């Protein structure tokens, strides 16, 4: 996979480390942690097997390397809105939004999920107090490789009356696939049914306080479950006891998200790329594009008005040879762009890629060539997702 390992820093272990090794996982350094890239064949492992299992049944991914943060305080929503281009104040309790942390130049510091996690405080008939919402709280899930910089950025810019907590005692388990809900409801009756895509709830599973969110990074229906580290192994075992569920590693996670057209931070966008060029304009809440009030608004508004010079697009390649990150893209002799993620699509049976291409060559179906070693591969601009999303939005 295309992810870089960080060998310069000490590699840390995550709560499920022994669990992965017990399933024959091949562990690799990723975002500073030892992470499973794939599992042993006698556990149903292998990148393609795990990929296909997730598309057909349900894969269990350990994503505990990701940063889980809680931002609390009466002014939490307003404060967050100064740092992200998405609407947070209008996000109802239990709702989730994809948004971005931007720098002053409009570059993407990180992409993240924000959940309004404000607790409901039950009333008490005896004392006559009515039920009400507690102190506003926003649960953020950020990328593992960028979490320390994110925390620094948030601490620097959030006002003193807003509290930032790094929930570093929490593990995060993603259950992804068309049978994820069927499996999860057998374990936690009623929980999947209470959520549609981009909704989140807390759930006490026996003594384990969980947060269950219907979201993911595979394009499939699925859930992300935040669990205290000490109970992570118990939860992983409980889920994998279901016939539909098998563990899946980083390798399958990368090929699944690529098929789903979902960008990977640090590869498909970074702090030098604005969200419009990254084709993430949907994350800029319409009203806030005009009203502004968020870091990076001015430069981003300029790109919105003038159009980006280059844009992130999907490419479908002819033949079977994949083009990887860094491969140059040409029209005739002229270089018009560069691939940022690429690989072989197990679902489609041919190579796919994401690339930044000069805006005048980004029309759907535009014929391009990709240089791989001494070859020129025929490619064409294709709409994303490459494999349709199957999120559950309600019946």
């Amino acid at each position, binding site marked *: *996979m*295309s992810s870089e390992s960080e060998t310069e820093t000490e590699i840390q272990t995550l709560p499920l480390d022994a669990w992965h090794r017990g399933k024959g996982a091949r562990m690799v350094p990723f975002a500073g942690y030892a992470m499973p*890239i*794939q599992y042993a064949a006698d556990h149903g492992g*292998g*990148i*393609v097997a795990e*990929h296909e299992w997730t598309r057909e049944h349900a894969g269990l991914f350990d994503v505990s390397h990701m940063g889980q943060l809680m931002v609390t305080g009466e002014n939490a929503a307003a404060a967050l809105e100064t740092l992200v281009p998405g609407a947070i104040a209008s996000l109802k309790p239990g709702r989730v939004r994809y948004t971005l942390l931007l720098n002053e130049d409009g570059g993407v510091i990180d992409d993240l999920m924000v959940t309004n996690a404000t607790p409901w405080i039950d009333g008490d008939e005896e004392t006559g107090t009515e039920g009400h919402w507690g102190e506003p709280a926003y649960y953020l899930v950020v990328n593992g490789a960028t979490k320390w910089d994110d925390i620094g950025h948030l601490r620097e810019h959030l006002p003193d009356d807003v509290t930032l907590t790094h929930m570093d005692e929490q593990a995060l388990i993603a259950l992804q696939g068309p049978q994820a809900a069927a499996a999860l409801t057998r374990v936690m009756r009623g929980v999947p049914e209470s959520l549609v895509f981009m909704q989140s709830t807390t759930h006490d599973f026996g003594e384990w306080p969980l947060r269950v969110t219907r979201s993911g990074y595979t394009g499939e229906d699925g859930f992300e479950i935040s669990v205290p580290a000490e109970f992570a192994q118990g939860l992983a075992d409980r889920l994998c006891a279901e016939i539909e569920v098998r563990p899946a590693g980083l*390798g399958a996670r990368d*090929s699944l998200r690529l098929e789903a057209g979902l960008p990977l931070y640090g590869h498909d966008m970074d702090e030098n790329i604005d969200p419009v060029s990254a084709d993430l304009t949907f994350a800029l809440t319409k009203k806030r594009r005009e009203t502004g009030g968020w870091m990076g608004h001015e430069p981003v508004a300029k790109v919105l008005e003038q159009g980006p010079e280059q844009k992130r697009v999907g490419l479908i390649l002819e033949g*079977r*040879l*994949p083009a*990887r990150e860094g491969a140059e893209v040409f029209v005739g002799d002229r270089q018009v762009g560069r691939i940022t993620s690429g*690989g*072989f699509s*197990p679902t489609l049976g041919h*190579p796919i890629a994401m690339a930044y291409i000069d805006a005048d060559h980004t029309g759907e179906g535009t014929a391009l060539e990709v240089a791989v*070693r001494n070859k020129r591969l025929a490619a064409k601009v294709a709409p994303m997702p490459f494999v349709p999303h199957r999120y559950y939005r309600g019946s």
Partner: protein
Amino acid sequence: MPRYFTDEHEWIDVDGDNATVGITDYAQSQLGDIVFVELPETGSQVSKGKDAAVVESVKAASDVYAPITGEVLESNPALDDDPALVNSSPEDEGWFFKLAIADKAELEGLMDAAAYKAFCDSL
């Protein structure tokens, strides 16, 4: 027909002045699902220890080195249509190329099956 192995996990079957080259079962298990194999052209020269082929797995591209120097006589046409042969039959149907051996002395220093097994066990 003696078979030798390299510490880069290639195997080479020697048959008189010619040899057949592929990658070992250990190598394919490390690479994972193979989706494309780029083979040297017939008539091209490969040099001992230098790039001779490229294996693309779902995960990454990996170089395959020539165990010895020689001229490529034939590349395995079956790998064009079915690169997964390298996973399913790495040391038989999934062979990479045949070459005319330039210098048999280069075979010295390669491992036999027992030595290669001990080498893999030590990894």
